[in-house]
């Protein structure tokens, strides 16, 4: 009986140790992630005005979408569509890249939803964000 108690204590210790290990930081400093980050950072200079005008909003799935095409002058509409498409491509790549960099490709969906929440929470006042299917202005 005594041996079994010792064994259980050992298991608990091992579990706690592994838990601490699991709580360590995620790896986000790889060349792939940095390249995507830089591309998104450069694009943000152009996108910021469209977030502010309400033309583009942050979706609940960690992407962005053309929300109100009417807020964009006709001449610019195609350019904005291209910006949105490129940004979404980068975002998809970013989520996949983070999951892969940490050796858990299956985490991609959870990383995406974590990002979705944080993008929306950190959005500036006046920007449009999607929550439970409908758009709301922050």
């Amino acid at each position, binding site marked *: 009986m005594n041996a*079994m108690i010792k*064994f*259980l204590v050992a*298991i608990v210790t*091992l*579990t706690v140790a*592994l*838990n601490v290990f*699991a*709580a*360590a*930081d*995620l790896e*986000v400093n790889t060349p792939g*992630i940095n390249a995507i*980050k830089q591309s*998104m*950072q450069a694009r*943000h200079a152009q996108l910021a005005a469209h977030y502010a005008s309400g033309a583009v909003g942050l979706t609940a799935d960690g992407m962005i979408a053309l929300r109100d095409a009417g807020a964009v002058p006709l001449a610019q509409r195609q350019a904005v569509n291209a910006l949105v498409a490129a940004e979404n491509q980068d975002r998809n790549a*970013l989520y996949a890249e*983070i999951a892969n960099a940490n050796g*858990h490709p*299956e*985490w991609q969906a*959870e*990383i995406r939803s*974590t*990002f979705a*929440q*944080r*993008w929306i*929470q*950190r959005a500036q006042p006046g920007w449009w964000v999607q929550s439970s299917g409908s758009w709301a202005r922050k």
Partner: protein
Amino acid sequence: MNRVWIPIAFAAFALSACVTINIYFPAAAAEKAADKIIDEVWQTQQDKPAAKEEK
């Protein structure tokens, strides 16, 4: 002889627990990583992101 199987069963359980913990998604770490990347992409720095103060 039957007693031999008890530790073996526990060992199997412990091993499965290890695997479970290892594939558990680290939500807090992911949130931290997301904030770090969002800061850099949006150039928001750490001055006053308001939502971030969870002390």
